[in-house]
């Protein structure tokens, strides 16, 4: 049975304190939701950039690996450039500039470039291979490209 006392439980409105608490809670939740939204959007954008960069690195390294495979001489001068001499007399110069752009130039001057992929890269020669070390990995060799020609010379 509903009597006069019980009807007092159903209030017509809220006190100022309740409204302020509710508003505060809503603001905290909305702020967290906003942060979460930004994180999701940023991760999507970063994912696209990473995928694009990985694709460019793969292409460049694939070309460099083929050059190294067939080269009969590897000369690394300052860590930022490497010269690969092919048996047919062509000399391929791989260079990393200050902006991290990786370029390949042959003796005839034909030029290819992959932008912003090798900022921390360093070339070195390791026996019959050209290596690339990455600053991100504290100098640990990231990529090793063996020369079949130089290896065969060692075998002979």
């Amino acid at each position, binding site marked *: 049975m*509903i009597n006069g006392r*019980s*009807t007092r439980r*159903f*209030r*017509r409105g809220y006190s100022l304190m309740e409204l302020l608490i509710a508003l505060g809670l809503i603001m905290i*939740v909305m702020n*967290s*939701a906003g942060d*979460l*939204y930004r*994180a*999701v959007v940023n*991760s*999507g954008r970063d*994912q696209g950039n*990473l*995928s694009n960069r*990985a694709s460019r690195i*793969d292409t460049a390294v694939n070309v460099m*690996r*083929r050059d190294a*495979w*067939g080269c009969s001489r590897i000369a690394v001068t300052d860590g930022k450039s490497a010269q690969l001499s*092919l*048996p*047919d007399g062509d000399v391929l110069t791989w260079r990393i500039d200050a902006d991290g752009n990786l370029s390949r130039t042959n003796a005839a001057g034909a030029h290819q470039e992959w932008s912003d992929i090798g900022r921390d890269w360093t070339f070195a020669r390791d026996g019959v291979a050209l290596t690339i070390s990455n600053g991100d990995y504290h100098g640990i060799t990231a990529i090793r490209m*063996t020369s*079949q*020609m130089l*290896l*065969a*010379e060692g*075998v*002979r």
Partner: protein
Amino acid sequence: MKQDISNRREFNRSKSNRRGFVLMMAVVLVGLIGLGIAGIAQVCRIDMVRTRARAQDAQLRELLLAGADVAIARLANGSAVDGMITLPDDLTAQGAKIVLHAQAAAGADAKEVTIEASFSMHQLSQDLHFVRSQGAWQLNSAELGS
């Protein structure tokens, strides 16, 4: 009595509205978290596929180097270059295979050897060009194929 019922309805309505708001917020937050997890899973999947492909490529190149070693030795011995190379059992079990194909190039003192390597359903080849100089075969050029 009427006032009391009206109050109760109002209370229930406001309670229902609050539930709707909370539910909506929960769905939005769960959706955002789901999108984030899906994005991370996608990156992990792409990285996994890429890493596996690089590992297989590295193994194939090792097989090609081994094939070249055998080809050079066979040429030096004067034996037939063509044929399959016997590999250790653990490599064979993983689908590794090296096949050599030799053919005469321009002139009697030149030879072209194609080495085909297979590993785990993937293939890679290289072409070696040999020339005979002072009675010995020397590798003149090497081209990594696809």
